[in-house]
């Protein structure tokens, strides 16, 4: 979807912000650019919507050199979310979200409908929030509006520059979780910039680690944890890789789609209930998208060996503690 072909960006003061970048963001993935501050990740992102122009090399958007596209046209096709949010304080929440549809000349009915749909998606009931002003909202709510505004015209690509960076840890966690769900729904290609490796591991299908304007490693989160290619990546990823692996591992990757006899009672007991009481406590089922860490901790809390995996109120399989532990030790 987005391809960097030997891209360089030098500034007039001599800084070499991007130094020979070659990689491709695949369609439908969330690709995270991560690295220490000053590594060129934000510059790289801004090369896509032409807020920066490369001094050398080419950036391709859907096969076309971005330089050949009209900058404002290109930007209206790409969603853009920044750390400082940048809401227009003189406009209402609804008007903020309607910005790009209006720039594109949508008719009022279509725009209104879209605004309501997005506010609903972001957990801001339109009846309550559409006419309010950004200054009345909390930081988390403001960034929800920021994301809704970026999604308004149904962009093929979203650029997100430290979108949750200015939020308190609890709100950040909440928004990350919600955004993962939203992303499944909207199915857009996302390029996400952060300096936080944990956020990268959590949000990304692919992670591009950058240092001094160069790409150091480009891999899936699991591969990154299993095989850091350089000392720098190993240090950047951190010492607690076993634990992190549990966080990036999804239940769907370790679950068994059939229900073996030995666990039939757990599953049967569950059918139709949200939770059942076992020896140690309550059995709370997991979803396929939950992390293995969540599944493991629920197993331990309830004192059981396996948990039912539930999707849309039906049991789709089981996940066992031993399967998780086996996968965890494989990479280490």
């Amino acid at each position, binding site marked *: 979807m987005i391809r960097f072909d030997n891209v360089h960006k030098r500034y007039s003061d001599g800084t070499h912000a991007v130094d020979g970048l070659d990689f491709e963001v695949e369609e439908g993935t969330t690709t995270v650019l991560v690295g220490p501050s000053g590594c060129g990740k934000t510059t790289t992102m801004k090369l896509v919507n032409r807020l920066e122009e490369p001094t050398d090399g080419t950036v391709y958007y859907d096969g076309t050199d971005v330089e050949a596209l009209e900058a404002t046209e290109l930007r*209206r096709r790409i969603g853009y979310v920044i750390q400082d*949010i*940048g809401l227009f304080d003189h406009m209402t929440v609804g008007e903020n979200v309607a*910005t790009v549809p209006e720039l594109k000349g949508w008719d009022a009915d279509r725009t209104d409908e879209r605004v309501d749909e997005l506010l609903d998606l972001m957990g801001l009931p339109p009846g309550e929030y559409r006419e309010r*002003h950004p200054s009345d909202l909390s930081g988390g709510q403001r960034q929800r509006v920021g994301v809704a*505004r*970026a999604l308004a015209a149904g962009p093929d690509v979203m650029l997100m520059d430290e979108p949750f960076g200015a939020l308190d840890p609890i709100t950040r966690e909440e928004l990350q979780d919600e955004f993962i769900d939203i992303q499944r729904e909207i199915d857009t290609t996302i390029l996400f910039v952060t300096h936080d490796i944990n956020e990268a591991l959590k949000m990304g299908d692919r992670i591009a680690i950058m240092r001094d304007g160069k790409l150091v490693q480009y891999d899936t989160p699991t591969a990154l944890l299993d095989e850091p290619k350089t000392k720098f990546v190993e240090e950047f990823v951190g010492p607690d890789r076993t634990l992190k692996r549990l966080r990036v591992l999804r239940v769907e990757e370790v679950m068994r789609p059939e229900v073996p006899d030995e666990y039939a009672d757990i599953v049967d007991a569950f059918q139709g209930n949200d939770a059942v009481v076992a020896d140690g406590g309550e059995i709370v089922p997991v979803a396929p998208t939950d992390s293995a860490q969540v599944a493991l901790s629920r197993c331990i809390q309830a004192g059981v060996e396996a948990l039912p995996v539930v999707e849309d109120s039906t049991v789709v399989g089981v996940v066992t503690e031993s399967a998780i532990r086996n996968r965890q030790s494989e990479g280490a």
Partner: protein
Amino acid sequence: MLAAVSFLGELLSFAAENAGRLARLSYEHVAITLWTLAIALPVAVSLGVVISYYERAATVVLWVAGVLMTIPAIAFFGVLVPVLGIGNPPTIAALVAYAQLPVIRNTYIGLTQADDAAIEAGTGLGMTRLERLRRVRLPVALPVVMAGIRNAVVILVGLAAIGAFIGAGGLGDFIFYGISAGDTAMIVVTTVALSALALAFDYAFGVIEQWLRLRNGEEVDRAVLTRTLAAVHARLS
């Protein structure tokens, strides 16, 4: 006490006897002020917009407008008389110059104070420079620009009175007659009229400001008149 009451009576009877002439002079005064604004505001606001993009030009333009402002009004009027003759042209020309600094300065300050993040977001979402100006920067700057305009209007109403000396008419005529005829009531009543005129202009521009901000979708404390206007507007549309 008695003297004060009789003086007040004198003022009232003067105002009553000269209501027609006062109205005509007020009308002239308003006309001069409105003509000045019609020329000065587009120029000053455009200059403010242009210099908000070029910092170097900003220093120069603001300096020149500042120097213009230090030139004594009667001297300015006087210097223009040999060039433009007497009457409205030299008066309006000088007043246009005096209106520049408050309006240019406030437009510039208002435009450059818009939140950087909002401008970056606007750019990133695909707004052209003109769209950013119209949708983001100008609405944010509006209250500051309007404060500059209101400041300018009050100054203009006062300075226009001096224009009477070079034949521009307006309420200044009565001040000068009052001095030469030694007519205290005339001077006092005209002074009150001038002050009221300045306040009325200030109020009118306050209403315009609220009106524009409401149209931008902002919430403002509505003055009574704005409420009335909004109601009338709602009934018409």
